[in-house]
């Protein structure tokens, strides 16, 4: 029985520190204890990120051999949705696209741990992450350290809440466009 973990760093900004932190003995042993067999790493499309990823993997070859975790990597993919669906756990930069893709993926839904990129902390990724953790939809590791990620990994056995279903704006837009002929009241 294979158990896959997907690590995403996003497409726009490199997030090499996240890869470094995951590929440490401490975190890898935690993953191994959770019966993880495969680790898929999306490292981004900059050449430096690729080099950083490769050197990280090289540095922890011994641990990988001992734990039996099979690490594979890719820069970007068109088919992120299927990568997410086939995972047991997604550890992600806090990109809203990946968060929504994961939380909206069909059952069995992967668990989700989000680690915001400190470079983008002035942005709103951390706000979304905090709000969704408050709703118990996912876990939020506030800092890019092995301790914070390990403590998130310890909480994976909890029962997560489903994200409320997507609300449709079709009625509102139809009303505004004047094409909702049998109903004259605004939504």
């Amino acid at each position: 029985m294979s158990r896959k973990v997907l690590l995403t760093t996003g497409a726009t900004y490199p997030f090499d520190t996240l890869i470094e932190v995951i590929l440490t003995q401490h975190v890898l042993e935690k993953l191994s204890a959770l019966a993880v067999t495969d680790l898929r790493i999306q490292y981004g499309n900059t050449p430096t990120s690729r080099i950083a990823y490769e050197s990280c993997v090289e540095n922890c070859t011994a641990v990988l051999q001992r734990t039996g975790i099979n690490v594979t990597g890719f820069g970007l993919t068109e088919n992120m949705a299927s990568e997410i669906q086939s995972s047991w756990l997604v550890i992600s930069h806090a990109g809203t696209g990946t968060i929504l893709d994961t939380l909206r993926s069909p059952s069995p839904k992967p668990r989700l741990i989000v680690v915001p990129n400190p470079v983008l902390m002035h942005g709103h990724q951390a706000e979304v992450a905090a709000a969704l953790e408050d709703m118990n939809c996912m876990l939020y590791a506030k800092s890019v350290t092995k301790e914070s990620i390990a403590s998130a990994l310890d909480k994976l056995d909890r029962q997560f809440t489903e994200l409320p279903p997507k609300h449709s704006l079709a009625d509102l837009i139809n009303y505004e466009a004047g094409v909702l002929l049998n109903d004259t009241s605004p939504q």
Partner: protein
Amino acid sequence: MLDITAITIKDILDFVAEHRCPLLVLVLASAVSVLVLFCVLLFLIASLVTSYGLPPAKHANGASAMFVLGSGGHTTELLGIVSQLDFSLYPLRTYVSFSGDTLSTVRALRLEKDKHETAPATARGGRRQNVATVELRRARNVGQSYFTSIFTSIWCGCEAVVTLIKVMPDIVVCNGPGSCVFICFAALLLRATRIKLTRIVYIESFARVNSLSLTGRILISVVDRFIVQWPSLAAQYKHKGVEYFGILA
């Protein structure tokens, strides 16, 4: 003693004719043009303000809709909303994107293709379906200086006005970032001149939890419907008429 109130326009014209004073003519002409401009502006503003009190116009044969694709995550969110619409109600669909963002157009056309395959839209009243994509100059590129962005913004604004006059949408749906402000202002121009009573729906991004984006803060008072996706934002801007229904993404 000169009674100023007794001076009529005829007196002034007589005085000008008699003395042939070019400076006075110039002053009078500029005063009149400023007055006319002011009146036009006042009329436009009044006309715009009253347009908010009007209900949306009915379009039994379907409406013309304009969807403004911001790029990246904005495009994802907007196309998600567009995909829920019944295209037979919108025989004319225009997707606007901004220079350097060809991916949004590709994604919009992919959505059109998917929609056509799953549920081919049959136009009401025999109206032909017409899908168009428009690419506008971006108001400000990432890293561009604020000084040069004044000119690119003016250019973007002009292009937006031309596009709106050409397309004449019944409704504009947008969700930021920056450049969609120009489309909205161009739509307001159509409304103020009563060329078309274009309605504007603005949706704040899912990524905005506790504060509005700059685009949102600019547009909040001028759009017909302003929708947010988090309850904290809804509570904060309730007095501005912000609406919250839940997550739309």
